[in-house]
């Protein structure tokens, strides 16, 4: 077995990825044409995929840092793959810069808190709750939280990568580089853990600025981690089918499968935690979030659980399914798509409501509503938020006249709308485009270094890694 291998990024693969990227651009343009006046579908598609793939790069880095901090040896055989995945954060910086520029220039209306004059009590669009949160939900802090934090992570990822490459140049296996790498890895853990919460609050949770959940950042980060693990397994299996990574055995695959199985259960746990606390407490401005989604987006809501929990749980429960190449690829495909779906569910309904509100504000319909609303902040919120749930009981008798005004000029928020209620063809095309972009940079980084860090002190341990579940040679090994 040849350990000193180098990935060759051939022209055919490049061409395929460029075709994928072209398709993505085409679908983005397609979703921008024939969109509403805020280009909600275009911007949500962009935000969704930009956050999703940047997040995958971040979680790849986080996972790698956690493994290195924990003295894990098995990871060495696939370490270069992790490293290459994490380098996408630099591209993510550019992708998210577009969103930040959009916030400053009011190019999009993804974030309702960014409406001009929303914090000014004299202004008719004044929103007391958002004004109270304006220290956090402001363009300045948004820029720091998105670009600043991502920049810090990207720098750490770059330093880790440089250190790993420098290790290759060393003549013998040395612990010096390893010790240095551990310092970078261990210091990344708190940085990644704490800053990712703010990162995701700002980019995704603030689409629903009245709603607040302390579980949100955990749940969405775990979602990203699972998507990253699934993509990682698929990439490894692809590379193996091309004859690379011969030394990655089924033992490694088994361990990655265990991670996907276990973390899927953890994802469901966090999802349910968030749901049940809100369901049980039944506070108006929190419950509306789930009421809206359960009633108007049932396919997204229940499909989420089917794709991300039921499927990996039942399929990966058995020992042997984690070692079968075909089964693992199938499950990973579902889990990857499922977490993309999960982010779709987090972003689309909220952005649709934000655009709807913006339209009403622009037409001056909300103004009368606001004047009529009680000053008490709780009632005020309930009044504005029940506004989302068309046809809800509270709304019907609260202001019937208002409800009629909706019906006249606007499509109802509860109606089916492709690209919001379920992913449409444009969304799938954009996903393929961003995936191709991601994989392009991934393969570019992969080809720049040997596929196996031969000077890593844990190399031998990784090559002989065993889960002990099956005898060596039998049902093991790299041939499949």
């Amino acid at each position, binding site marked *: 077995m040849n350990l000193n291998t180098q990935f060759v990024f051939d022209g055919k693969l490049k061409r395929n990825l460029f075709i994928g990227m072209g398709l993505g651009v085409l679908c983005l343009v397609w979703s921008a044409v024939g969109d509403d006046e805020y280009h909600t579908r275009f911007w949500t598609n962009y935000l969704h995929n930009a956050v999703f793939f940047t997040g995958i790069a971040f979680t790849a880095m986080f996972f790698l840092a956690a493994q290195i901090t924990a003295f894990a040896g098995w990871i060495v055989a696939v370490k270069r793959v992790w490293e290459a995945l994490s380098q996408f954060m630099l591209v993510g910086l550019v992708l998210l810069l577009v969103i930040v520029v959009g916030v400053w220039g009011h190019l999009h209306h993804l974030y309702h808190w960014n409406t001009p004059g929303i914090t000014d009590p004299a202004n008719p669009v004044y929103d007391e709750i958002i004004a109270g949160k304006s220290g956090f939900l402001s363009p300045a802090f948004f820029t720091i939280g998105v670009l600043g934090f991502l920049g810090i992570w990207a720098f750490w990822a770059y330093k880790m990568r440089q250190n790993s490459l420098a290790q290759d140049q060393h003549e013998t296996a040395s612990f010096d580089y390893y010790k240095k790498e551990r310092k970078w890895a261990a210091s990344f853990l708190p940085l990644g853990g704490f800053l990712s919460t703010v990162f995701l609050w700002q980019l995704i949770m603030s689409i629903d600025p009245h709603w607040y959940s302390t579980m949100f950042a955990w749940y969405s980060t775990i979602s990203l981690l699972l998507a990253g693990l699934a993509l990682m397994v698929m990439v490894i299996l692809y590379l193996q089918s091309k004859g690379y990574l011969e030394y990655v055995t089924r033992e490694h695959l088994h361990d990655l499968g265990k991670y996907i199985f276990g973390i899927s259960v953890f994802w469901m746990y966090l999802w349910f935690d968030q749901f049940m606390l809100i369901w049980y407490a039944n506070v108006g401005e929190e419950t509306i979030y789930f009421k809206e989604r359960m009633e108007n987006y049932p396919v997204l809501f229940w499909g989420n659980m089917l794709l991300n929990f039921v499927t990996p749980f039942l399929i990966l429960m058995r*020992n042997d399914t984690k070692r079968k190449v075909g089964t693992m690829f199938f499950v990973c495909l579902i889990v990857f798509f499922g977490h993309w779906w999960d982010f779709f569910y987090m972003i689309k309904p909220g952005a649709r409501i934000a655009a709807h509100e913006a339209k009403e504000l622009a037409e001056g319909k909300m103004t009368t509503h606001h004047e009529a609303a009680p000053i008490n902040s709780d009632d005020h919120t309930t009044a504005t938020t029940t506004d989302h749930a068309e046809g809800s009981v509270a709304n019907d008798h609260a202001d019937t006249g208002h409800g009629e005004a909706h019906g006249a000029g606007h499509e109802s928020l509860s109606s089916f709308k492709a690209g919001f209620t379920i992913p449409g063809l444009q969304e799938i095309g954009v996903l393929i485009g961003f995936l191709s972009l991601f994989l392009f940079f991934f393969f570019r980084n992969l080809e720049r270094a040997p596929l196996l860090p031969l000077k890593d002190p844990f190399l031998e341990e990784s090559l002989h890694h065993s889960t002990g579940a099956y005898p060596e040679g039998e049902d093991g090994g790299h041939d499949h």
Partner: protein
Amino acid sequence: MAAVATKKVLYGLYTDEEDLKTAVKSAKDAHLDIMDVLTPFPVHGLDPVLGLSESRLHYLGFIYGAIGCLFGFGFMSWAVVSDWPIIFGGKPYWPIPSYIPITFEMTVLFSAWGMTITFYTICGMWPGVKPKILDNRITDDKFCIAFDVSESGKKDVDSLQAFFTKTGAAEVHEKEI
């Protein structure tokens, strides 16, 4: 099982688990009938070498878990919906989300207890049973291969002795248990 009849056992003690694995392999190659292998901790890769098939205990674990799941959910539903209906915190009579944590716990509890009890039953380890221990050191730092020599002639015992010497056992003893 708690057998009444005593057995005559010949056993060798090894000081290293890798030696033990090699010895088990050569015993298998020589078609020696191993009665048991005892180690102070689980040795990776020993089961396949011994030719033990995969344990079926986890199938039972799944069944116990499913029973616990249905029992927990069913009991709560029966108690709160049909036997003594009460409205808690303005929730419906059948508040499914609030049952999920308890249902989960019941699943884990039934599966863990069920598997533990089954395992002890299979091994004949009831309360009050005096455990038959070949050598106290196998719970500390020694690895043991045991052969049942109750019905073996002197020639067989000698060949087993030779096997232990060849594979590097530190000590060889004979004991009736």
